[in-house]
């Protein structure tokens, strides 16, 4: 497969290939590694693609009941937009056009609460159109583009602290779904997919960097308090497969976090 790609490049651009083996990174180089939300936090679709290689998940069985779309806490809105983006990927994997449209409608409703730009609304409309035409691969790109449009809009509103919330919501919901399926259909190979110690660590770092006012939001403070538990659950050794009970633990922790994120009561308390 790779050879075919190389051949394409060789034929089209006269590409050259490196052959020397690089030296291991030094301690100084390891300390200089940048962690950047845009590329360091994977899209939920990546986890779903990986799971689909070792199993044939019934993605429709992972749908959840519709969530409220009238939160008053901006942090909670951003977290739930992320969660809905992950729901969108699930519906795309299930190739369920109606569910994609339902999710897209909820994303737009929540995005409007953040007073995001018209470009986000336009993205939402594109999701509808691609769903109508069953363009599943394009929809995956469109969902990530929508997520990024929301983030951009938040940055433009000088709300860059909320940008991470979108990614956090998406990753937690994705983890809930993936771990839920693996817990119900356990194999050691699929369980190893859940190993992601650095993602939660990055989330914790970013949440702790938020201004005190943002951290005072009850939902945010609860998230900061509970993330170490999730961090611990997905931080197993690379040569180990978590047991079924350990996978269930990931499912329960991420499920509780997601339930809390999508419960409207939190928004009321935050006010």
């Amino acid at each position, binding site marked *: 497969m790779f050879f075919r790609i190389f051949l394409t490049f060789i034929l089209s651009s006269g*590409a050259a290939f490196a052959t020397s083996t690089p030296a*291991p990174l030094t301690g100084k180089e*390891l300390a200089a590694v940048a962690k950047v939300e845009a590329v360091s*936090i994977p899209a939920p*679709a990546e986890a779903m*693609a990986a799971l689909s290689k070792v199993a044939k998940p019934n993605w429709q069985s992972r749908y959840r009941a519709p969530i409220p779309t009238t939160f008053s806490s901006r942090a909670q809105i951003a977290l739930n937009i992320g969660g809905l983006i992950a729901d969108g990927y699930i519906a795309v994997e299930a190739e369920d056009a109606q569910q994609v449209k339902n999710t897209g409608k909820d994303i737009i409703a929540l995005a409007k609460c953040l007073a995001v730009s018209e470009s986000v609304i336009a993205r939402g409309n594109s999701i509808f159109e691609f769903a109508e035409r069953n363009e599943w691969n394009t929809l995956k790109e469109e969902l990530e*583009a929508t997520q990024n449009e929301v983030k951009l809009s938040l940055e433009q509103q000088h709300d860059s602290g909320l940008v991470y919330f979108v990614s956090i919501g998406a990753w937690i919901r994705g983890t809930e779904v993936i771990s839920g399926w693996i817990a119900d259909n356990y194999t050691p190979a699929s369980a190893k997919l859940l190993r*992601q110690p650095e993602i939660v660590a990055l989330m914790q770092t970013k949440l702790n960097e938020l201004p005190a006012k943002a951290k005072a939001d009850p939902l945010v403070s609860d998230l900061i308090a509970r993330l170490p538990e999730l961090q611990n659950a997905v931080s197993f050794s*690379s040569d180990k497969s978590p047991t079924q009970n350990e996978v269930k633990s990931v499912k329960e922790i991420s499920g509780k976090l997601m339930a809390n994120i999508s419960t409207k009561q939190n928004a009321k308390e935050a006010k």
Partner: protein
Amino acid sequence: MRTFFLPLLLVASLTTQASMEPADNMPSDAEVKAHTSALEVAGAFSNDGFKSRDGHIFGKIARKEPKFIQVNLYSGNQYWFIAAASSPAKRIVVTIYDEKGKPIPSEPYESNTQAAAGFSPQTSGPYIVRVEELEGDPAAFCLLYSYK
């Protein structure tokens, strides 16, 4: 189909970048050129079923000053990490390391100011992408990745 949407994706994603250095939100001309060049390579991989992440990062690159970026990957997927630099860079290279800094065998692609490394991780978790300028003067670069 993918080619048709490429301009749309470019316009949208130019506004969704992250920078490794403090910078204004809007990318410079050099960063835009580097991003366009990286997307060009990613477009070639899309013909083989690879999906490009919309997220990407910009930075400054210079000889003997490589940049290291953490990515978090899923075992079983195939990935291509694609970097491109603007002029006056002349040649760059992309290398992959595991979380402890050990080099990972990868399929390299180098074509002057465009470079990529492809591999399929055996273990889920963090990896490090190194982007290095081998020839040329300090320039802007863009890194993105594709997966399937």
